[in-house]
């Protein structure tokens, strides 16, 4: 069976999904179920005090018996804040070590700040975290994250939440070819074909949130993404035919045609 292995644990689904931007927890739950995802990201934020005392919690919607929770450091702009956030997450999740590191460079592009990301990765790995790192699609950066001990590298396809798809498949290809830990495309997926293309390139998985949550019908799109990731993976494993731009090749026999009319 073809499994995604991250930090020694095998997963059947190669689609990882976020939990942001949904209308409510019920839609979150239904979309995640339809996606078939087993690894689900969450953010860490201040709790409301003195209000919503009886409010349901996201973690009740995502039982750890069913999902691997992947806390993120979204919104962090320094290595220090990212490390603090994940230490809190580890306490919140009973010592769970798998984490998504993202250190942002600016609020307009949400592009990763790679020097801070590398610094945070170094500290987190030393503290026993299993770091899946959101990164630029620079192959050197991805390689350095791997060398620091990250368990997966997650280059962007395009800007977070932009839905612009895969801007630079060539860089992704270089990363896939050179990095030995799993490579997951994170950020920028807009629709099912984008996810399929990522998988056809040979990515080990895809992480997305907005493409599902902001679809007109999120639950349906979650299902579409499940199919796209599976189809893309199968196509990658099957090995596509060679492209022959100037050479047509009929699929039907050239012999046995009926008599040409005079």
């Amino acid at each position, binding site marked *: 069976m073809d499994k995604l292995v991250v930090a020694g644990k095998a997963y059947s689904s190669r689609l990882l999904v*976020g939990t942001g931007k949904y209308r409510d927890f019920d839609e979150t739950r239904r979309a995640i179920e339809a996606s078939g995802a087993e690894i689900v990201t969450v*953010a*860490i934020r201040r709790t409301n005090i003195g209000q919503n005392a009886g409010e349901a919690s996201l973690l009740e919607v995502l039982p750890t018996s069913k999902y691997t929770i992947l806390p993120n450091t979204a919104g962090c702009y320094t290595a220090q804040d990212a490390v603090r956030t994940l230490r809190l*997450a580890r306490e*919140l999740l009973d010592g769970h070590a798998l984490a998504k590191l993202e250190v942002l460079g600016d609020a307009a592009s949400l592009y990763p700040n790679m020097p801070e990301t590398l610094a945070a990765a170094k500290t987190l790995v030393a503290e026993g975290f299993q770091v899946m790192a959101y990164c630029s699609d620079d192959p050197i950066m991805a390689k350095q994250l791997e060398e620091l001990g990250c368990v997966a590298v997650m280059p962007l396809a395009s800007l977070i939440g932009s839905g612009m798809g895969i801007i630079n498949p060539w860089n992704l290809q270089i990363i896939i070819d050179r990095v030995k830990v799993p490579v997951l495309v994170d950020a920028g997926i807009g629709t099912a074909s984008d996810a399929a293309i990522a998988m056809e390139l040979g990515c080990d998985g895809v992480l997305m949130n907005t493409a599902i949550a902001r679809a007109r019908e999120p639950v349906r799109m979650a299902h579409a993404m499940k199919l796209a990731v599976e189809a893309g993976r199968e196509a990658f494993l099957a090995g596509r035919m060679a492209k022959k731009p100037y050479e047509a090749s009929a699929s039907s026999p050239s012999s046995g045609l009926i008599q040409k009319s005079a």
Partner: protein
Amino acid sequence: MSAPIRITVNGAPRELPAPLTFTQLLGELDLAGRRLAVERNGETVPRSRFGDARLADGDRIEVVIAVGGG
């Protein structure tokens, strides 16, 4: 009973009776039994310490939960 302590919780100043453990603080904040994590002055406070560790005047406390995110 000693003098009350002044702390900030999630950025807001609060005055609370001392001595005060983290378990008591969470009770005061109506957060007892919730799934959360706590940081004091930038350092995570393990849940195992909530019952005996005491708040000190000037502590900056962060109380966090998991929310939807990508």
